[in-house]
């Protein structure tokens, strides 16, 4: 059995400062992290490996200038990691990457499960997983909290939110699942593997492969998404005083929270 973990990397938000008045983003500390949701996907893959002895392969969710995330995955216990390289990849969007990843999975000889993070940390987008599932014509389970493979290895089961509570759902394999951030806690890397993978020594270092994207795709594809700049909200206005009866004040607070919840994309009772 083969489980693919698709992992991203994102600029650590605590290292950046957005100056709304200047309309600029200042990067104080350029440090990239494995996004919380992708950490959960990697941990879910490792737990399936613990239970079934399957092979875990790490693939990047976007073209990276370095292979640090993949080395982290190998240090944690992934069996293989594929670094994708090629020309013009800096503009690659999710539609493009979905086709690249589908081609990479085919070249690997197929897979039984693909796990990835439910959302990206910066934009909160969800589309890579479903787009990949569509290309592969696989069932998808989005926003899973727990993932287990059924004893006969024919189906995967997951815990998802349903009707205000949690439910267990099942899909035949192969299938694609996305994990919500905070669902699982990623284990610490093995010390020896960590040292060897960064020193480039031993089998763990040899497990990191480099593939050319151009060789994977039969036809040249172009990204569909175009970045047209950035926009900055007005300066934060602190100290807005609320006065009135308790009911009036509560209404103002509730409305403010509702707007904020909407911007966060949270599906709270208030937001719906």
């Amino acid at each position: 059995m083969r489980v693919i973990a698709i992992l991203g990397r994102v600029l650590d938000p605590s290292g950046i400062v957005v100056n709304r008045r200047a309309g600029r983003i200042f990067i104080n500390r350029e440090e990239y992290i494995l996004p919380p949701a992708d950490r959960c996907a990697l941990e879910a893959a490792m737990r399936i490996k613990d239970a079934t002895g399957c092979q875990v392969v790490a693939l990047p969710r976007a073209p990276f200038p370095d292979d640090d995330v993949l080395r982290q995955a190998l240090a944690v216990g992934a069996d293989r990691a594929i670094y994708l390289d090629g020309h013009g990849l800096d503009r690659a969007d999710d539609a493009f990457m979905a086709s690249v990843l589908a081609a990479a999975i085919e070249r690997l000889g197929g897979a039984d499960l693909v796990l990835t993070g439910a959302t990206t940390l910066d934009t909160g987008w969800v589309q890579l997983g479903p787009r990949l599932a569509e290309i592969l014509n696989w069932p998808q389970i989005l926003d899973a909290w727990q993932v287990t493979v059924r004893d006969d290895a024919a189906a995967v089961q997951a815990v998802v939110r349903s009707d205000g509570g949690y439910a267990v759902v099942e899909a035949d394999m192969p299938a694609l699942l996305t994990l919500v951030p905070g669902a699982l806690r990623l284990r610490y890397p093995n010390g020896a593997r960590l040292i060897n993978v960064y020193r480039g020594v031993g089998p763990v270092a040899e497990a990191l492969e480099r593939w050319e994207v151009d060789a994977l795709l039969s036809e040249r594809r172009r990204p569909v998404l175009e970045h047209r700049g950035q926009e900055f909200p007005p300066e934060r206005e602190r100290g807005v005083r609320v006065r009135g009866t308790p009911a009036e004040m509560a209404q103002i607070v509730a409305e403010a929270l509702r707007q904020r919840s909407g911007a966060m994309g949270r599906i709270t009772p208030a937001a719906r």
Partner: protein
Amino acid sequence: MEASYLDLLMAQQEEFAEEAAGGGGVWVVADVVNGALAPVTLEAMGLARLLADSLGAYVYAVLLGDGVAGLAQTLYQAGADGVRIADDPFLGRFALEPYLKVLGDLFAQEGPEVVIFGATPQGNELAPRLAQRMNGGLIERVTKATLDEATRTVQGAVPVYGGEYFELLACPEARPQFLTVLPGAFPLPFMDTHRRGEPVSLPVEPVAPRVRLLGTAVGFEPPPLPLRQAPVIVAVGRQAGDLELVRQVAAALGAQLAGDRGAYDAGWIGREQIVDVRGVTVAPQIYLAAGIRGDTFHNAAIEEARYIVAIHPDPEAPIFEVADLCVEAHPAQVLPELLTAIR
């Protein structure tokens, strides 16, 4: 003579209507929650109407579910020129494959120019799969949209890092252009109660869902997030009065409970829940401080919070110097009303 002129005019209009019905248009896929249209669907209708008016196109809404036919007139009132309905017991509970089958067939036939979903669990499942199937572009979690009329391209503003700034994105070459819009981001449209229409029923073929519901996850509790990573925090101070009430507000907001050192001294929270530079510094999207006066150590620990609401009876409380929204009242008076309002 006049009659033949009218006949000619009507024939031309019919031809135009058929042409318009055969392609393009701005489409909204409705989200039905507990038998009613989700507010985000009406907000999407308002956006669709604006875009369609600029494009010179029609607005269509698609309604899927069981017993949803009664909602069609609301969509007409919200600005739809046409409504397509797939009303079938088979669609009563959302499942990806049956919904995809209906929408995939419909859009393959109609060739929409823009398709709008709510950024809800249903929209998040459907929009990327349809976009991939139709080679379309997808801009997610849009909070503002403008139109480049020359190229008929929608440009969407997408919040980054919880709205610290917005990325402006467009899909100039891909058609259809799919959008998911964040709930609460667009205003509700004017509801014209005089608008009415005759919805068109869509065929529903039974397609088995590939994901099976096995039952409730008995005993499952999601793991608590570390306070530092919590997106919403409700913090309690000594002036809060009723701890249980604060807990209920936190539960209603899906927030983590925390507090200041005073709350810890009162035995209301654990040591790991103290928000203080000597305890945990936090950076949530929303920080609601109920009855916290706000000393220097506490206020420094919430500096990175994106939005701070403070409720305290003392107008001179230092917490008001860092809060975005300052409620000068006793929490015991405001919180019950707040609980009612957010529920």
